[in-house]
C-alpha cells in the first residue's frame, strides 16, 4: 500500500528558522494590539453615545427605553461588524491567531450579539408603542408598514435569529454541513438589510458627520476585507494557477492522496501544516468547500491532499477523475513552523492527523535528531503515509515511533503495553526532549485533548504545544 513513498522526491527543508522566547512575546504583543483596537472601537461608540448626552435621558420610562435601544444598537452593530470580520479569512488575523481560534471567537460572539440586538429591537418597539399608545402588535405592524427602512431592519433581525438558531450545537448536529453553510450565508443578507435604518433613522448616526464617518468607514473596512479576502482573492489566485486533479492514489484501505497540478504552483504560497478549503468543481460539489491539510510540503510540482473516507464527500474522493478542476481557498492556519520557538520538535499524529505532520516533518529546519515523530495507528499494514514517514525519518535522521494497536486504558492516547506504565512515562521514554521541545499535535479532538494533558504533566509549557483544532 505504501510503495508510492519511493516515488516522492522530498522537498528540501527550510534552511533556517527563528527561535527563542522573543518570537513568542512579539506574537503576543501583536495579538494584544489587535484586541485592544477591537475593544476600543466598542468603547468609542459607547463614548460617542454618552458624549451625546445619552446618560441623561433617564427622566421617563420611554427615555430609558430609548437610551437602551440606542446603546444596544451601537454596541451590537459594532460587535456584529467585528464578528463578520472574524470570518472574512483575513490573512493578518489568520497569521496572528490561526483560522481555528478566529472561528472559535466568531462562534462565541454570535449569541451575545443576538441578545444585544434583541434588546435593541424590544426596547425600541416598547418605547414606540408607549409613545404611540398602541399595543405591541399594532406598533410592530405600524413600524413595518409605515416607517421608512424599518421593514428591512425587521427582516434582517429575523434572518439573524435563523442564522444563530441553526448554529447552536443542538441544531448543527441535525443539519448537514452543506445545509448549515447555505443558511449561514443569510447572515450577510441580514446585515445588509439592517444597514438602511441605521443611517436614515438612527438617532446616533443620522445627521451627525463624525458618527457617520466612523460607521461608513467601519462598514467599508469590513465589507472590503470580506469581498477581497473571502471572494475575489481566491478567484484571482485560482484563475492564475488553474488547478486540476493530476493523480489519485490509494494510501490505505480508507485514505487516498489527491495530487493537483497547475501553472506556477509556487504562487499559491503557503507552508507545511496549513490547510485549504477545497472545492471540487463538478456539478455535485462546487458549492461545498471542505477543509484539508496539505500532506506534502509546498513545492512547484504538485499540491497534495491525503483524505480519509469519513463521509459522503470524502468517500467520493477515491473516484475523482483526473483532469477535474479544483478550486482552493487558503492557505490557512498557524500549525506551522512559524510558531516554533525551540530547537527540538516533537510531532504527534493519529490517523487522519498524519497529513500535516508528514508535511511539517518534510519542511522543518532540523539537524538529525532534532525531530521526534510519534504516529498512532490501528495497525502497521493499514497506516496512511507510514511508508513516507519512515523514509523521511531515515533520510533526515529523525526518530519515528509507530504506535499500533488498540488503546490500553480508557484515558490513554497510547496503545496498550504490558507494563501498564502511565502515558507520561512512555512519552518521555520515546521523546526525551519533549518538555523542552515544540510539540505539534494533530488527530481526533478527544485524543488530542488527552495528549495535551500528558504534555502538561511532563512539563511542556503551554506556548510550546500546538494543536490543530478542526473548526470551520
Amino acid at each position, binding site marked *: 500500500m505504501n510503495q508510492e513513498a519511493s516515488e516522492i522526491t522530498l522537498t528540501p527543508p527550510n534552511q533556517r528558522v527563528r527561535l527563542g522566547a522573543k518570537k513568542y512575546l512579539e506574537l*503576543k504583543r501583536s*495579538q*494584544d494590539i489587535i*484586541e*485592544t483596537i477591537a*475593544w*476600543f472601537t*466598542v*468603547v*468609542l461608540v*459607547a*463614548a*460617542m*453615545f*454618552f*458624549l*451625546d*448626552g*445619552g*446618560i*441623561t*435621558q433617564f*427622566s421617563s420610562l420611554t427615555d430609558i427605553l*430609548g437610551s437602551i*435601544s*440606542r446603546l444596544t444598537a451601537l454596541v451590537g452593530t459594532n460587535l456584529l461588524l467585528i464578528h463578520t470580520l472574524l470570518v472574512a479569512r483575513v490573512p493578518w488575523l489568520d497569521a496572528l491567531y490561526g483560522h481555528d481560534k478566529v472561528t472559535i471567537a466568531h462562534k462565541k460572539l454570535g449569541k451575545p450579539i443576538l441578545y444585544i440586538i434583541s434588546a435593541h429591537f424590544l426596547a*425600541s418597539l416598547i*418605547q*414606540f408603542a408607549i*409613545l*404611540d*399608545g398602541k399595543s405591541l402588535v399594532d406598533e410592530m405592524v405600524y413600524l413595518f408598514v*409605515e*416607517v421608512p427602512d424599518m421593514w428591512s431592519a425587521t427582516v434582517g433581525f429575523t434572518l439573524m435569529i435563523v442564522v444563530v438558531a441553526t448554529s447552536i450545537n443542538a441544531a448543527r448536529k441535525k443539519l448537514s454541513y452543506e445545509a448549515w453553510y447555505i443558511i449561514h450565508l443569510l447572515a450577510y443578507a441580514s446585515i445588509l438589510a439592517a444597514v438602511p435604518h441605521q443611517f436614515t*433613522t438612527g*438617532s446616533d448616526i*443620522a*445627521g451627525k458627520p463624525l458618527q457617520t464617518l466612523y460607521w461608513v468607514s467601519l462598514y467599508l473596512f469590513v465589507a472590503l476585507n470580506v469581498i477581497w479576502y473571502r471572494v475575489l482573492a481566491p478567484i484571482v489566485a485560482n484563475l492564475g494557477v488553474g488547478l486540476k486533479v493530476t493523480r489519485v492514489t490509494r494510501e490505505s484501505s480508507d485514505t487516498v492522496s489527491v495530487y493537483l497540478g497547475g501553472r506556477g504552483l509556487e504562487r499559491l504560497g503557503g507552508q507545511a501544516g496549513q490547510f485549504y478549503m477545497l472545492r471540487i468543481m463538478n456539478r455535485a460539489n462546487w458549492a461545498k468547500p471542505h477543509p484539508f491539510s496539505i500532506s506534502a510540503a509546498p513545492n512547484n510540482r504538485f499540491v497534495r491532499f491525503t483524505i480519509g473516507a469519513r463521509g459522503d464527500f470524502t468517500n467520493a474522493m477515491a473516484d475523482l477523475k483526473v483532469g477535474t478542476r479544483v478550486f482552493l481557498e487558503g492557505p490557512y492556519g498557524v500549525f506551522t513552523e512559524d510558531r516554533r520557538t525551540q530547537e527540538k520538535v516533537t510531532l504527534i499524529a493519529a490517523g487522519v492527523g498524519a497529513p500535516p505532520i508528514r508535511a511539517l516533518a518534510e519542511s522543518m529546519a532540523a539537524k538529525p535528531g532534532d525531530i521526534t515523530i510519534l504516529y498512532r495507528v490501528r495497525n502497521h499494514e493499514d497506516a496512511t503515509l507510514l511508508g513516507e514517514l519512515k523514509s523521511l525519518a531515515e533520510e533526515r535522521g529523525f526518530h519515528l515511533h509507530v504506535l499500533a494497536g488498540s488503546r490500553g486504558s480508557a484515558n490513554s492516547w497510547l496503545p496498550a503495553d504490558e507494563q501498564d506504565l502511565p502515558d507520561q512515562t512512555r512519552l518521555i521514554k520515546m521523546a526525551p526532549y519533549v518538555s523542552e521541545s515544540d510539540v505539534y499535535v494533530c488527530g481526533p479532538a478527544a485524543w488530542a485533548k488527552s495528549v495535551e494533558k500528558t504534555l502538561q504533566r511532563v512539563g511542556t509549557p503551554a506556548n510550546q504545544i500546538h494543536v490543530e483544532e478542526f473548526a470551520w
Partner: protein
Amino acid sequence: MRSSSKTFVGLAGLGILVAAARAGMPLPDPSALANEPATNVDVGPTATATPTPTATATATAKPKPGTKPKPATKPAATPTPKPTTPTTPPATGTAVSQTSAAIRYEYGTIQVKVTKDAGNITAVSYLKSSYTRLPKGTLTYLVNASIQANGSNFTKVSRATVTTDAYKKALEDALAKF
C-alpha cells in the same frame, strides 16, 4: 490577551466612558435648560443695575474651592446671554409674532408661527406640518421644548430626527425675523 493588557483595556475603556458620560452630562439636561432662561432673566437686569447681587452670587459660589473651575465658568457663561435681554427692550406685555418660511424636507413641509414676549418665546403654532407618521406627541414636545429652551437648543425626538431638524430650521427662520 495577556492579563496586563486586559487590565489596561478595562481601565482605559472605563475611564473613557466615564469621561464621555461626564462631558455629555450638562449639555442636554432638560432641567438645566428649563432653569437657565429663567435665571438669566432674574440675574441679568439686576446685575447690570446694581453691583451688589453679583457680589453675593460670587460669594455663594466661593465656598467650594475644589470645584473652582465650574462655578467660575457658569457666571462667565450667563453674562453672554444677558445683553440679549436688554437689547430687546420692547415694552413687556406686548407679544410679537413672526412666521417662518415653509421648510420642505424629506417627509413633508413644516411652517411655524412664533410668538415672543419680552424676548422669550411664549407660543409656537404650526401653520403647516404635513408629515403625519410621527411618534405621538412629537409636535407638542417640539413646541414645549422650544419654549423651555427659548430657542432651538434642545434634544431631538428619537425616531423623528429629520422632523426635529426641519422644525428647528423653521423655528430659527422665524426667530431671525424678530
